[in-house]
C-alpha cells in the first residue's frame, strides 16, 4: 500500500493532534479532577419520600463557603425551586429524578448533567459572581419541558 509523502505528513499531524487532545483531556480528568459527571449511586425513584437524602431535599451548609444542595427533578420543575448562597460559595449539587430523564443545567457554567431516574448525579460549582443564576432542564421530558427551571440566588457577601 503506497502512501504519498504529503499524506504521511498530514496523517502524522492529524493523528498527533488527536493524541494531543486525548492527552490534554486525560490529564485534566485523571490528574486534575475535571471528570465528566459519572456518579454511580442509585436510589428508588418511586419511593424518594423514604430515601434518607432525597426525602428532604434542600441546601445544607458544610462549612463557611461550602454547601451541599440535594434536589429532586420532576416534571416540570425542581424541588426546591430556589436556593440562596453567598457569593464565593462552592455548591455540590446532588440531583435525582422522581419520574423521567431530566437535566440539571446552569447556562454559562460547566454544570450540565443528565438526571436519570434511579440514579444520582453530581457536579460542583463555585459562584464567584453575585446574581440570579438560571437552572434549566435541557433533556426533553414532556409537554411542559420548556417550563422546567429554577433559580440560584447568589447574594453579595
Amino acid at each position: 500500500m503506497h502512501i504519498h509523502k504529503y499524506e504521511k505528513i498530514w496523517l502524522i499531524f492529524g493523528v498527533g493532534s488527536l493524541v494531543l487532545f486525548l492527552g490534554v483531556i486525560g490529564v485534566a480528568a485523571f490528574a486534575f479532577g475535571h471528570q465528566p459527571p459519572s456518579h454511580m449511586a442509585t436510589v428508588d425513584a418511586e419511593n424518594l419520600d423514604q430515601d434518607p437524602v432525597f426525602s428532604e431535599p434542600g441546601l445544607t451548609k458544610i462549612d463557611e463557603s461550602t454547601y451541599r444542595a440535594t434536589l429532586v427533578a420532576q416534571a416540570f420543575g425542581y424541588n426546591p425551586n430556589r436556593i440562596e448562597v453567598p457569593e464565593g460559595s462552592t455548591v455540590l449539587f446532588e440531583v435525582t429524578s422522581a419520574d423521567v430523564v431530566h437535566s440539571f443545567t446552569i447556562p454559562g457554567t460547566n454544570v450540565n448533567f443528565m438526571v436519570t431516574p434511579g440514579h444520582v448525579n453530581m457536579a460542583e460549582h463555585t459562584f464567584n459572581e453575585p446574581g440570579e443564576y438560571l437552572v434549566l432542564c435541557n433533556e426533553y421530558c414532556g409537554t411542559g419541558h420548556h417550563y422546567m427551571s429554577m433559580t440560584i440566588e447568589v447574594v453579595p457577601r
Partner: protein
Amino acid sequence: MNITNLAVDITQQVKPGVDPKDKKLTIYHMSVAFVAFIIGVFGGLLQGLARGGLIPLPSWLGYYQILTAHGVLLALVFTTYFIFGFFFAGISYTHGPLSKGLRKLGWTGFTVMSIGAVLATIMILMNEASVLYTFYAPLAAHWLFYIGLTLFVVGTWISSGAILTHFYRWKKENPGERSPLFSFMATATLLLWIVSSLGAAVSILFLILPWALGLTDSVNVLLTRTLFWYFGHPLVYFWIMPTYMVWYLVVPKLIGGRLFSSSLAKLAFVLFLLFSTPVGFHHMLMESGVTEFWKFLQTVLTFAVVIPSLLTAFSIFATFEQTGREQGGKGLFSWLKKLPWGDVRFFAPFMGMMFFIPAGIGGLINASFSLNAVVHNTLWVVGHFHLTVGTTVILTFFGMAYWLLPMLTGRRFTKHANRCGIVQTWLWSIGMFLMSGAMHILGLFGAPRRTAYATYQDAPQAVAWFEGIFASHITVAVGGVILTAAGVLMFYNFIYLTLLAPKGETEFPMTPDPHDMKDSPKFLENWKLWLLITALLIVFAYTIPIYDMIVNSPPGSPLFNNLIK
C-alpha cells in the same frame, strides 16, 4: 489507439447500466425519501418560527410532536430510503441485474420498511408518540410506534440481505478477484448498519415493547439509553459512508479525473466498520451510571474513527489537485479553475465537503470527554448535526439525485435542472450558515436544544438568546425560512427530474476503479476477519459497563405516557 484499448472501451460502452426493473425499485425508494424530506422540511420551518417566538403553534399541533416527525422523517426515513435506493442502483450497475429472487427480496424489504415508516408516522400524527426520534424511556409512546420502528429496521435487514447476496454471488463466481470499490464500500456500510441496528432492535423488542404493552411493569432506563447510542452513533456513519462513496467514486468522474488509490479507500471503510460502534458513550458523557474509565475508553475509540476521515480529506483534495493539474492547471491555486464549478452534480457535493470542515471540528469537540459539558444538549449540537447530516450528507445526496433521478426515469439532466440545482445549493448553504451558525453560538451560551419557545419567566440570560445580533433564535428562524425555500426548490427538482424533464439518456457517473486495484492487499477483503474484530471491540468496550448496568440497576421505571400529551 491500439486494439486492446479499443476492446476495453467497447466493453465499457456497452455496459448495460442499471437494469430497468432495478431502476423501478430505486425510484420507489427515492420517491419515499423525497416525500419524507418535504414534510420534514416544513416541520423544520415551524420549529424555527415557533422557537423564535414568531408564530404560535395551533392548539392541535404540539412543538414536540413536530420535532418527533422532523427527526424521524429526515434523520431516519429520508436518509435510509435514499441510501438503499442508491445501493440498489449501484449494485445493479456494478454486478449486473439482480436475480428475480433477490429483486423480490428487495421489494419485500421496501414494503416492510414502508409499513413500519407509515405506522410510526401515523402514531406521531395522532400525537401518540411525541417521544422524539431517540424514544428515550421512560417517556412512553403508543406500542404501535415501536412496532413501526421495528418493522422499519427489519425491512432494512431484508433489503441488506438482497444487496449483500447479490455481491456475494459475484464474489463466488470470481474467486481471487478484487471487489469493485462500490460493492466493497456498500458491504462495509451495510454490515455496519446490521451490527448497529441489532442494538436498537434488542432494546425495542426485549425491553421497550414488552414494557409499553404492559407485559413487564418496569424498564431499565440506563440500559435502553446505552443500547440506543450503541445504535445511534454508527447511524451517523451509516449516513456518512454513502456520502464518502459519492466523493470517492462519483466526484472524480465528474471532474474528469480518477481516484488514485483503492487500497487507502478500502482501508478507510474498514476502519469505519471497526471503530464506529464501540463509541456510543460519547453521547452519554454527562450521565450517571457509567464510570469515567469506560467513558474515556470509548472517547479514545471515538478519536480513532476520525482517522479514516483524515484519510478521506487528503484523498479527495488530492484527486482535485491531480485532476486540475493534469488538465493543464498551474500554480498553487489557479488549477482550481479547472474544476467544473458550473456543474451542480459536482458543486453540491463540493459545498457539502466545505461544510464538513466545521462539522468535523465540532464533532471532535463534542466527543472530548469533560469538554462535552460546554455543549451537551445545547443548540450547539443541533447546529452540529445540521452541518453533518443536514448539509454535508444532504447536499451530497442532492448532488447524486441530479444524475440518479433522470437516469432512473430515462430522462435528461438539463441545463434548467442544473441551474435550479446551483440556486438550490446556494440557498441551502446560506440558510444553513445562518441557522447552524446561530445555533452553535447560542449553544455556547447555554441555550437548550429540544425546547419550545421559552424565556423562563423572562430570565435575563434566556431573553438574551432572542436579542443577539447574529446569535439569536431570530437568526435561526430566518435561516429556517431560507432553508425551506431551498427545500421546496429541491422538491421541484425531484418532480422535474422524475416526471417532466425531456426523455433521453443519463449516465451513471462512476469512476473506473484505480490502477492499483490488483495490488490492493488481499486481506482487506476478509470480511470474516473484520466482523470478528468489530465484535471483539464491541465486547471489549461494552461488556463490563452493561453488566454493571444490569446487576447494579436501581428499581426499573414505570410507563410515563401521560407526560407527552
